[in-house]
């Protein structure tokens, strides 16, 4: 049994060096961003020693840039900080909604979108929201950064595409075309503090006549990983996102879901509610795009 250690590198190269060294020696290293999942795991689920690599001192991981072509959100930026960024909120209201739904005000002060993604819970709220807006993971490795679409990043329950020696340094989101908007909704039994029973993120683009020209729909907590549901998007494209189209998109989401019954909900319940959420989120995105 090894011992716990803590390092807080100040450059990406230094961080990669620590990861590489641990990987080569067969020792465990784990990235710490907000810590809202990691510390819970350390206290109850898995107490085995490891080196904790805190990325909050990396400049790149703290960068938020709402640029002319794309947006970058560093992996160590807390939700509360994103929520205070009006430009970002304006551009991706659905993503900020999703980030804002994770836990309490206290959790918001620490939790990061990247952490939510790396934790790879089927119920992670930001994952469908990120997929809907076509976000891309920026992964640091010794051989340079590589990029991977969010929908390809999560590989299973609690697993992701990061290789030994790599870490997620941030997320890149292409700028949406005009008259595009996103929305995210989830269902929980209380008003706050719960894990999603089902979630749906929708991003769509309207033309001047109000016809949907492009859409992405992603659903969460109804399969081992968040799903990109092209059938739901297809149901919206070419329509004015009216009730019939919404019902068709909802049905596509329910059909795409392969949920389980657990302490938070049943198969039947999740299947039905994920459709309801898709319908409601798409209507919000439509109204936002029209505005």
């Amino acid at each position: 049994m090894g011992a716990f250690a803590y390092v807080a590198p100040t450059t990406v190269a230094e961080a990669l060096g620590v990861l590489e060294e641990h990987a080569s020696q067969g020792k465990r290293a784990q990235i710490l961003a907000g810590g809202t999942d990691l510390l819970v795991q350390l206290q109850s689920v898995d107490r085995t020693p490891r080196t904790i690599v805190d990325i909050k001192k990396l400049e790149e991981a703290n960068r938020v840039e709402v640029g002319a072509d794309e947006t970058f959100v560093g992996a160590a930026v807390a939700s509360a900080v994103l929520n205070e960024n009006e430009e970002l909120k304006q551009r991706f209201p659905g993503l900020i909604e999703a980030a804002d739904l994770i836990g309490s005000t206290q959790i918001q002060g620490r939790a990061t979108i990247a952490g939510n993604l790396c934790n790879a819970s089927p119920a992670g709220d930001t994952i469908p929201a990120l997929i809907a807006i076509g976000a891309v993971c920026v992964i640091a490795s010794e051989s340079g950064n590589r990029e991977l679409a969010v929908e390809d990043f999560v590989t299973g329950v609690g697993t992701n595409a990061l290789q030994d020696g790599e870490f997620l340094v941030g997320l890149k989101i292409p700028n949406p075309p005009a008259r595009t908007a996103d929305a995210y909704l989830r269902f929980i039994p209380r008003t706050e503090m719960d894990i999603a029973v089902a979630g749906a993120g929708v991003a769509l683009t309207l033309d001047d006549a109000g016809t949907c020209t492009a859409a992405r729909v992603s659903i969460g907590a109804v399969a081992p990983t968040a799903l990109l549901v092209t059938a739901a998007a297809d149901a919206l494209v070419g329509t004015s996102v009216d009730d019939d189209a919404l019902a068709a998109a909802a049905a596509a989401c329910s059909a795409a879901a392969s949920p389980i019954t657990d302490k938070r909900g049943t198969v039947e319940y999740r299947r039905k509610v994920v459709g309801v959420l898709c319908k409601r989120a798409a209507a919000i995105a439509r109204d936002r795009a029209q505005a």
Partner: protein
Amino acid sequence: MAEAVDYKVVGTRPIRPDGVDKVTGRAQYGADLNLPNMLYGKVLRSPHAHAKIKSVDVSKALAMDGVYAAVSGADFPTAAHGDIGGEGGGDVADVAKNVMARDKVLYHGHAVAAVAATSQSIADAALAAIDVEYDVLTPVLDVDEAMADDAPLLDENCFTANLPEKPDKPSNIAAVMQLARGNVEEGFEAADVIVEGDYNIPMAHQGYIEPHACTATINEAGQATVWCCTQGHFEFRSMTAKLLGMEIADLKFIASEIGGGFGGKTVVYLEPLAVLLSKQSGRPVKMMMTREDVFRATGPTSGTHCKVKVGAKKDGTLTAATAWLAYEAGAFAGAPMGPGAMCVFAPYELENFHIEAFDVLVNKPKVAAYRAPGAPQAAHAIEVALDDLARQLDMDPIDLRLKNAVSEGTQASYGPKFPRIGFKECLEAAKAHPNYTKPLPEGAGRGVAAGFWFNVGMQSSAEVHINENGSVIVVEGNPDIGGSRASMCIMAAETLGVEYDSVRALVGDTESTGFSNVTGGSRTTFATGMAVIEACEDIIAQCKARAAATWGVDEDQVEWEDGQAVPAPGVNADVKPLSLADIAASAHKTGGPLLGRASLNAQGAGASFAVNICDLQVDAETGKVDVLGFTAVQDAGRAIHPDYVEGQMQGGASQGLGWALNEEYIFDKNGVMENAGFLDYRIPVASDLPMIDCEIVEVPNPSHPYGVRGVGETPIVAPLAAAANAVRDATGVRVNDLPLSPPRLLDAIDSAE
């Protein structure tokens, strides 16, 4: 509603005397005492819900660096059978086995060993080094399963108690209880309408925010001091003494501030372990439960299966009722089926009824008291049935209850005749409340239900010390769980005729004040308050004697008015009245310090009734409930400090709504609780609730000097049914089982379409 009584302090809302320490972080709770050279104690818990323990070996743990003690069941003396006393009820030998398993583990999380080490991380490592061999048995996980003929047995020596004859074979039914009057069959024959229901409610937890914690130290002479969060340090002392075979006088228990209990901190879990670990190590030992431990291994309240049948005439007069009430006890006997049986029909006049209740062993944690133990589940059944009855009779649900409500002189279903009670007053106040007739938003529903709890008296002690300047110190033996120090100060100030600000109250430890039963049963303001009032009257008698001696008159020629001794009317004495401060200042010349005391076994606890109105709406597509409004009406007898009476009503409403809507123990097929944390055991958060409107009804309890009835427990009795009835009103669908969680509700709504 209050009767015109001219009180100066009673009924005011002053700031509590312990308040500043609690808003600044100074107040010390169970886990807040660190002693020099202290070790951390931790408990190894069973990974199985039902298993024989073949062996426990702590030797490897004990050999580790930094580990100074390790114990298992074999290190405890065998406790004799006997009643533990107090509110929780139960058998000493069972408490002993619950604190540390001996030959068998009976629920997942049952303690099997404990260690003490120099740090928490070393203690964790030591637990991992303990070897336990189990023979795993099939767990029994609900009442129906446990009551079946072929159910696996938790205890082969469990023969159902209270039957006319001892049964010929053991079972999981630890005890039964029956209450009956009149002729039920004839009663149902006389009915125009009969409703029946079958109701299941899963186990629920008190959910206090402070996990159990204590620090214990014992010296070479065997004298121990234990600091802990408890609802009753005297009873913790006696339980610990019995479990460890110690002399009571060698145990000193100091009650820390307590971070919530609601009945759950009336029995010991950690304290005997900490004393034993301290004894083995020779060092102080601090033990703190994790939140997970609290859910898995402390006493929640019973899951229940209840069946109720009620008949009524067209005018709403009840003609007969039956109740079948099965309560999960958890691992050891002692479910609150008795109070459940006694409460179920208590609010109503019934000539014909039959009640049968069962105390059933299951492989889940042993239940403990939870606010009106047993009553909310039984009340849910009858109050839902009455709502259905009111609908069938096309009658206002409050009118139906008024038609059958008990009042002074009615013989209660559980035996005695009611003295003066305030049920009808509560029903009338609810009916007259603007919230009852306020228009509802489209699609919303309104539900009504009533609740009843006996309240208890029991033993209390109090002393009152008068300082040399006339200020007052009240010493009581009841941990202050929700503002009771303020109530004691108010009653002392009122009785003595002094300012509230001149009175302080403190909770004495087991060596510095007289015996007092637990803070439970809604008894503290009633019974301990009565002791404080009597101790103040003792002071007044002494003051009158001192004044008489000073003035050279007889004692009966002195009266006590507005905080001072004055000559009685007609007594011709040219003297200046003597205030408490005057008498205190000269006490050294008139006989020494003024010390009043009282101890009593309080009789005449006044039953408290409540009526709740719940407004909510249901999202028809998701089954989610949004509580829009809640109105609690309750008879407090007399509200000594109305803020804290309202606090009890609001807190009880919140807990009841949580239980109704989302709270439940979820077990897997192996008996492992799947939601042992606040993430998935969903107690209400601030954004879940509206403001909770309170109306305090005051029908004074004739047995208390200021008319106090207990108020702490009744508030949780009615909300379960009030919420269920509101859901029925909003959706048109009747759901008998709780919680009314979104999946259950949506399923019911969809099935009805």
